[in-house]
């Protein structure tokens, strides 16, 4: 009887762990992958804009923003890059501070991109 009870408890524990794992997997976030976002930024930048640094982070499982810094050959190219980022379905907005547009050529820039909410629902 004691052995049967111990087996019963052990089996219950096994089931509890398996249920817990299943629940954990079911509740997995289906958020955007950094690699997909990175690829999109790289594609938009193409060869016209040089990306020097890029960083992402998740807050409570969601990618809130992407920070990129780099160099653009001209002000017009940089603005076009910003506009292309904003047109992408993956991104909500791309904030380019006006101070970045001081120079007309070889423009160093810093852009903060907000990731589309739809991507993270």
């Amino acid at each position, binding site marked *: 009887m004691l052995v049967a009870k111990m087996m019963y408890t052990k089996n219950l524990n096994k089931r509890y762990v398996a249920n817990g794992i299943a629940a954990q997997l079911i509740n997995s976030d289906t958020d955007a*992958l950094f690699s997909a976002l990175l690829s999109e930024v790289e594609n938009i930048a193409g060869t016209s804009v040089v990306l020097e640094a890029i960083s992402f982070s*998740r807050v409570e499982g969601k990618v809130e923003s992407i920070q990129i810094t780099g160099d653009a050959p001209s002000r017009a190219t940089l603005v076009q890059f910003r506009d292309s980022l904003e047109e992408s379905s993956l991104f909500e907005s791309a904030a380019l501070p006006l101070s970045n547009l001081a120079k007309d050529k070889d423009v160093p820039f810093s852009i903060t991109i907000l990731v589309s909410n739809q991507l993270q629902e």
Partner: protein
Amino acid sequence: MITRKTKVYGFVSVLFFIVMGAVLVSMLQYIEAKGGELVQHSKEIADYKAREQAYNELEQLIVSTKDDRDELATYILTENVTIDFLATIEEIAIEQGIELTTNSLHVEEQEGLFDTLVISFSVDGPQTRVYSMLQILETLPYHAFVSGVSFTNDQKAVGAVVEGTIELNVSLLDYD
């Protein structure tokens, strides 16, 4: 005519009636008590049978779900396979042709069954390979997600070389 003999018979009859009445009441009480015990035993037997059935069903469930549970277990890291997990990541990095160093490793305790193992990696290598490594880390067959990425293009290097850090969070089964 009421004789002495009749009185004795009468007295004995009344006494017999009283005694028989008392015996009958006692027997009824005894039967009632035994009936109660029988009902109690029947309930215990029914309880026992129900538990036995539940146990058998649970046992069958455990047998029938073994493969599923074994598969589920492969998606979750446990402390005893953490070293192998890190070794695998490092082997993948070598295969990808990038330098990968484990900067830090710590466990964030969470409520419930799972803790989170937070691993910070430094990566350095050709851009496409580093990006490919990021994709691999994001699609590991574990309950894991990349929580932070920071890459810098090395402008002085020949070709597109990237260095940076990747922070990976992996669910760690806590048996305590």
